[in-house]
């Protein structure tokens, strides 16, 4: 076994040129082959790529899709995001437990099937959903669980699972997935028909600086959430001094409730790769990396094929479209289940084969990014917008949308609404109008921008979705009248507690403390001062955290405290005697009473 391990890992490392920066690929391959990256495997990897063992271990312990301990051949990861819970994932979870006779976090005694929970997998519009290895299974029900488990036990090969096929490219033999695009509304920018190479041709007819000027004139802003002007980002990267430059596409899409890039990757990958080539030409890069979240592995064969086609058509590769000296190609880097890797500097770390830790800024990625070279990181949708801008012109693009936020925005809508799915709508749309469109006019609350965004109530439904008012990377989650907003805020805090990288104390510890206060309130033991504590602590975390995760993680609490204050106030009451209702002396003494083999005389009841 050990010899075998040695030779297999040697081959895997050699396949990646024994290159330490390809660590993600190496550990992913080892995990896939052996169902774990064992202690022994870590030593062997470290030896071949010539790094310290602890670096390998650091990576394995960081990403949820990697594990030191053996996992089953089949890993069922049931999504327990808030939206899935609202869609009844509880019953589905019980069904899995019953059919497999194991609990979550366990592996069947024959070592073949592991059952786990996972945060949002980008399928909120078809919840409850699960990943079974790389396969996505949507619209789960208790009956379906029975069928799936019976089917799996026949062959232990998730790719053989029988299921109906989704629409569009989901039905392509390279994808063969039951995922539906759920594309409810096509707009002029992303989902109108697109003829491959139209944008790239126009781009290559002008100079890089002119491209940047066009993108600036279109006032394109980043679609990943932060809304940074794309033209400026490209200009900075172009201007920065570096032997090489890179353009990275952020397809990590981990913000709960966001699933719009999924549809672009399925239906408009051509347009995306074209945008990367245009960006590459503009900034002077020869290489691009698409960072694809591990959960979207089911799309990789399709994406690889499209890349291959583009190389064949000379839309990638050497002297692209006859433009002498413009060489550009794209590789795909798979993630391994870590929300923080969507943060651009963490994404760069991950591409470099490191733990997905954010980096300290400055230097900004445009100055010193991937491997220390100037790097532009752009969202999937941003790059598609760039392609369309080069095709249709800046003025055409700026006609749609609002003044500060031109163009359209893909909104992925889920939760308590009649028509969940992806909508391409002009920026500046009122929340009220959006709710009408999706069939949720009686919504109690709407979360705009995912948990790092804002939870608003009916008083704010006249506000508009755009960078100057309610910014969003795409997520819109609707909550009906029966939902308890304190409970929802607590669920989202749980997400941030799990997903922060642990580097800085305000975020690592502060979010846990927020969650503790919330749990106390939900248990009916909260006091009015807990609300003040939540406010104060939330604000401190925001101002003292190092990266965007901690700077926004208290938002679910802070925005519900503001907009749903009564829900909190109903749950708290003043302690009459100044004692803490959460302190349980019996529980605190249980161990000692057992060890001493006597009962407390001081506290008899």
């Amino acid at each position, binding site marked *: 076994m050990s010899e075998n391990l040695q030779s297999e890992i040697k081959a895997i490392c050699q396949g990646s040129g024994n290159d330490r920066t390809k660590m993600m690929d190496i550990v992913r391959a080892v995990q896939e082959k052996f169902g774990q990256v064992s202690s022994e495997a870590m030593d062997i990897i470290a030896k071949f790529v010539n790094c310290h063992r602890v670096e390998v271990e650091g990576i394995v312990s960081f990403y949820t899709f990697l594990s030191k301990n053996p996992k089953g051949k089949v890993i069922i990861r049931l999504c327990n995001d808030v939206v899935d819970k609202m869609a009844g994932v509880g019953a589905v979870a019980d069904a899995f437990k019953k059919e497999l006779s194991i609990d979550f976090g366990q592996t069947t005694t024959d070592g073949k099937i592991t059952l786990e929970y996972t945060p949002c997998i980008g399928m909120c519009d078809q919840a409850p959903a699960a990943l079974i290895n790389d396969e996505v299974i949507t619209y789960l029900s208790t009956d379906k669980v029975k069928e799936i488990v019976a089917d799996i036990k026949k062959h232990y090969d998730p790719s053989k699972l029988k299921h109906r096929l989704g629409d569009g490219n989901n039905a392509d033999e390279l994808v063969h997935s039951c995922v539906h695009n759920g594309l409810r509304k096509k707009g002029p920018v992303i989902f109108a028909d697109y003829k491959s190479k139209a944008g790239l041709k126009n781009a290559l007819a002008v100079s890089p600086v002119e491209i940047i000027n066009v993108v600036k004139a279109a006032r394109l802003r980043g679609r990943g959430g932060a809304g940074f002007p794309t033209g400026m980002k490209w200009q900075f990267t172009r201007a920065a001094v570096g032997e090489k430059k890179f353009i990275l596409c952020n397809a990590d899409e981990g913000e709960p409730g966001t699933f719009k890039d999924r549809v672009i990757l399925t239906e408009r990958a051509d347009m995306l790769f074209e945008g990367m080539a245009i960006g590459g030409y503009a900034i002077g890069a020869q290489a691009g990396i698409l960072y694809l979240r591990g959960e979207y592995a089911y799309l990789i064969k399709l994406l690889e094929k499209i890349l291959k086609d583009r190389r064949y058509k000379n839309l990638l590769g050497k002297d692209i479209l006859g433009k002498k000296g413009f060489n550009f190609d794209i590789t795909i880097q798979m993630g391994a289940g870590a929300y923080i890797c969507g943060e651009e500097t963490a994404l760069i770390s991950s591409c470099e084969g490191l733990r997905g830790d954010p980096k300290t800024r400055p230097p900004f990625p445009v100055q010193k990014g991937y491997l220390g070279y100037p790097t532009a990181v752009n969202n999937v949708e941003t790059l598609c917008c760039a392609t369309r801008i080069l095709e249709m012109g800046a003025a055409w693009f700026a006609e749609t949308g609002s003044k500060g936020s031109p163009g359209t925005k893909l909104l992925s809508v889920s939760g308590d609404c009649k028509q969940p799915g992806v909508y391409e709508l002009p920026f500046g749309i009122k929340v009220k109008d959006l709710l009408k469109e999706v069939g949720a006019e009686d919504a109690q609350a709407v979360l705009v921008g995912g948990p790092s965004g804002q939870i608003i109530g009916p008083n704010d439904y006249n506000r508009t979705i755009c960078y100057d008012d309610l910014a969003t990377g795409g997520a819109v989650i609707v909550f009906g009248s029966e939902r308890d907003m304190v409970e929802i805020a607590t669920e989202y805090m749980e997400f941030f507690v799990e997903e922060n990288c642990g580097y800085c104390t305000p975020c690592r510890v502060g979010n846990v403390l927020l969650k503790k206060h919330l749990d106390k309130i939900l248990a009916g033991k909260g006091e009015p001062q807990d609300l003040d504590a939540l406010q104060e602590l939330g604000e401190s975390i925001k101002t003292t955290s190092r990266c965007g995760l901690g700077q926004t993680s208290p938002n679910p609490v802070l925005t519900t405290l503001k907009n749903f204050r009564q829900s909190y106030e109903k749950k708290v009451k003043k302690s009459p005697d*100044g004692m*803490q209702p959460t*302190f349980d*002396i019996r529980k605190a003494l249980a*161990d000692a009473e057992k060890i*001493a083999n006597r009962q407390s005389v001081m*506290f008899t009841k």
Partner: protein
Amino acid sequence: MSKPKIATTSLAGCFGCHMSLLDIDERILKLIELVDFDKSPIDDIKEFTGRCAIGLIEGGCANEDNVHVLQEFRKHCDILVAVGDCAIMGDIPAMRNNIPLKECLEEAYLNGPSIHNPEKVMPNDKELPLCLDRVYPCHEVVKIDYSLPGCPPGADTIWQALVALLNNKPLELPYELIKYD
């Protein structure tokens, strides 16, 4: 008019915070003019004799007696101040919190490198208060009104806080008094 009363106690602390209180030097005479001391190690009064305006708590809760005393303080004092890091967050005694109680006791009484205990007896007199499963900061047991950070907070810090409380004035703590690095 009778003077307001003040009580102090050391729970799971090192008495360092009390030493810091004594560090106010001659101002202790002024303090005596302002207040009477009730239950406190300073005058060795063991039980409360009546209602107190202020209770100063040093140390967190490591055993049942600490809890009992802290609850008594809450019942008898209008204002409770957690003095020092042990009271505020458990601090050094709380380093045992990640180790199961049984292991801690065995290390302390049976297995520690400097232990001589051939009969392997674990102290277990009825008079000994039972340990809690972990060390609790005071605010997890009762409501705490104010916290004075520091290990220990300096004499001037404690003095300023007491004077402000007794005169019902806002507390002004200049940066030097709460700077610890």
